[in-house]
């Protein structure tokens, strides 16, 4: 089967899948509708301070699985909805950042620096339009890079990497994630070690389930949903509730804004911001392709790079941080271009790079029939590889979401400004109950809720101690695969205990893993001295 055939099959899987309803005898396929609904929900969620895309993805997943079931037909509608949320939340985060100086998502913080001064100057709508154009451009660029790179990277991995090299690559990825996320390599390693330890409880190859302390409940292991939702979502809600508990008496004035003068984005404006968008899109895509490096860093780098260029090229214009449209463009293009590129390690290596990617892997894992990783991109001769059709279906979904973004995203962004008025202290307890309910309906046992509370406490403590929970979650997801690959590699090399070092490529990966830890330790130490 040729690439073109798979592209056609992928597009057909999206547009000729099961119909949701019919208009005048013509069936309306379910997947595009789910992408649209997810995208609109994502914008609303992103525009609500206190909520985030991963939260909405986590809560939606069990409902989606209940609607669509576990059949192969379920994968594209479910993933379409989740990808829609992921993309929508990125642009939605800019809305409160620009209108009310409150970032809806952490990566929109830099957007406040120029967005809010523009609002204060009466240019709120123009600022939103610039954010939208920049975000949609960065996102589209990033998706094109994903579509071009992921299959080639996967084919390279399958062609050149055997079991020892794949084991070493997993170790390198974990070492990289533990080193680059957060402010401390030590804390990253502790977080990763805890994630590995948690996933190894109650599992193993022996008849006796390991590390169970004699408990039958632990013998089944921790369900993946309790660990991920507990540490990522419940831990964050616990922390946010405490912050609100301390701040509840602080009087909060309801923000408002007025618009003055021309709010259109003219061709001249686009020409001015285009170089900043292009530069930031490249920065964001490069950063997004590295697992674990988030959109906040991309936004910061995009802003800093753009700021330097602007100060040199246009010293007389409004500078970054004082209401420069170029500042919004640099930030929004950078943070939006992370989302597509973040799926490069997911689809080509099976390694999630951020929280949103974690939930996409969780969805694929829950539904079955699609295991993100290099084996997806096997171009079989004669028969059809259904996973490859799904992969091209996902690419189609991403481009469809971009189409929605370009056409209706901007308009919808401008109407969700009211989301900031939803009181956080009412929203968070409801989100907490919703998350516990989502966990229970998936697992159908009370022990899952107790585990989720335990993981929530762990996530809370991690946040209070300045430790990122993401290495924990990614190690939890990859731990089983790491052990399985290592067992197979050990057996395939005839019980060679040094299999990670006797093979040249594996040895290079291991050396890189040590280097990235040592290098990160040194670079973090320098500012502290």
């Amino acid at each position, binding site marked *: 089967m040729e690439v073109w055939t798979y592209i056609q099959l992928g597009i057909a899987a999206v547009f000729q899948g099961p119909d949701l309803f019919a208009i005048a005898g013509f069936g309306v396929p379910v997947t595009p509708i789910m992408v649209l609904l997810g995208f609109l929900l994502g914008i609303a969620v992103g525009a609500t301070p206190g909520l985030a895309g991963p939260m909405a993805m986590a809560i939606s997943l069990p409902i989606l699985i209940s609607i669509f079931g576990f059949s192969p037909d379920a994968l594209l509608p479910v993933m379409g909805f989740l990808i829609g949320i992921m993309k929508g939340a990125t642009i939605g985060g800019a809305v409160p950042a620009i209108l009310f100086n409150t970032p809806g998502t952490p990566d929109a913080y830099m957007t406040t620096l120029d967005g809010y001064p523009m609002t204060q100057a009466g240019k709120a709508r123009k600022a939103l339009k610039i954010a939208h154009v920049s975000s949609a451009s960065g996102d589209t660029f990033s998706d094109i890079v994903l579509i071009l790179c992921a299959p080639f990277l996967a084919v390279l991995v399958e062609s050149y990497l055997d079991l020892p090299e794949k084991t070493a690559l997993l170790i390198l990825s974990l070492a990289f994630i533990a080193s680059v996320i957060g402010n*401390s390599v030590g804390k990253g390693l502790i977080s990763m070690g805890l994630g590995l330890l948690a996933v190894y409880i109650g599992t193993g190859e022996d008849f006796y389930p390991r590390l169970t302390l004699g408990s039958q409940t632990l013998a089944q292991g921790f369900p993946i949903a309790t660990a991920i939702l507990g540490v990522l979502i419940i831990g964050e809600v616990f922390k946010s509730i*405490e912050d609100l508990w301390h701040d509840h008496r602080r009087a909060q004035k309801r923000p408002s804004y007025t618009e003055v003068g021309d709010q259109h984005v003219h061709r001249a404006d686009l020409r001015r911001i285009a170089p900043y968008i292009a530069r930031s899109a490249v920065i964001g895509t490069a950063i997004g392709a590295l697992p674990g490096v988030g959109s906040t860093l991309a936004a910061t780098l995009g802003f800093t790079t753009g700021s330097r260029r602007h100060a040199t090229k246009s010293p007389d214009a409004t500078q970054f941080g004082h209401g420069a449209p170029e500042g919004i463009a640099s930030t929004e293009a950078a943070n939006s271009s992370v989302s597509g590129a973040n799926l490069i390690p997911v689809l080509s290596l099976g390694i999630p790079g951020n929280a949103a990617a974690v939930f996409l892997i969780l969805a694929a894992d829950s539904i079955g029939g699609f295991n993100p990783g290099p084996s997806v991109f096997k171009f079989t001769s004669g028969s059809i590889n259904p996973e490859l059709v799904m992969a091209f279906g996902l690419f189609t979904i991403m481009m469809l979401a971009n189409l929605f973004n370009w056409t209706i995203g901007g308009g919808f962004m401008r109407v969700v400004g009211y989301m900031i008025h939803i009181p956080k202290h009412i929203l968070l*307890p409801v989100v907490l109950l919703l998350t516990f309910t989502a966990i229970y309906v998936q697992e159908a046992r009370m022990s899952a809720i107790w585990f989720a509370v335990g993981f929530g*406490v762990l996530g809370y403590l991690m946040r209070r101690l300045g*430790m990122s929970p993401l290495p924990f979650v990614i190690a939890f997801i990859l731990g089983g695969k790491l052990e399985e690959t290592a067992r197979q590699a050990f057996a395939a090399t005839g019980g060679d205990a040094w299999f990670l070092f006797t093979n040249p490529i594996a040895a290079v990966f291991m050396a890189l893993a040590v280097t990235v830890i040592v290098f990160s330790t040194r670079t973090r130490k320098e500012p*502290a001295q």
Partner: protein
Amino acid sequence: MFTGSTTNRALAIFAIAAALLIAIGWVPLDTDTGIVEKVRRQVTIGDALAPTLASIFIGVGGLLLFFQGASPADGRLRLANLRYLALLIGLLLLSFAIMRWAGPAAVALFGAGESYAALRTTAPWNVIGYFLGGTILIASLIAMIEGRPSFRAFAIGVVASSLLILLYDLPFDDLLLPPNGDV
């Protein structure tokens, strides 16, 4: 009170101690196979290797953290944080206890001799626990944040729990709200 790098050092010592305890105590005592196993003259990786490596990561992380300098983003854990956590866990335990036992208690009192297990998919018995537990959870958390209990918080709890029942229970026969999956 802990501050900055003191918290880091305490965390580092805890991590190193935990890693030693896991690697020397827990893993050898609670796994049946060792680091490597010899089965029919073939050497394979045992179940103890992976968790031992996990403990080594925790220990190395602790060591690196111990010698790391202070940074503004270090984070702090105060006694007030632990007090909040205890209060929060108390509220969750109370809510989940109500969620778990309110339905069976209602059936025992008014269920005409039926067992809860027999009625766990029958309205209104199947939603009594979730409704009461969910309402208490939401109302008590809002009251905690606002610093006082209020009718408004209770009303929000009632509305939100009811909406979640409508969202999960009414349209899907295969979804079971807590505690109906394992009673």
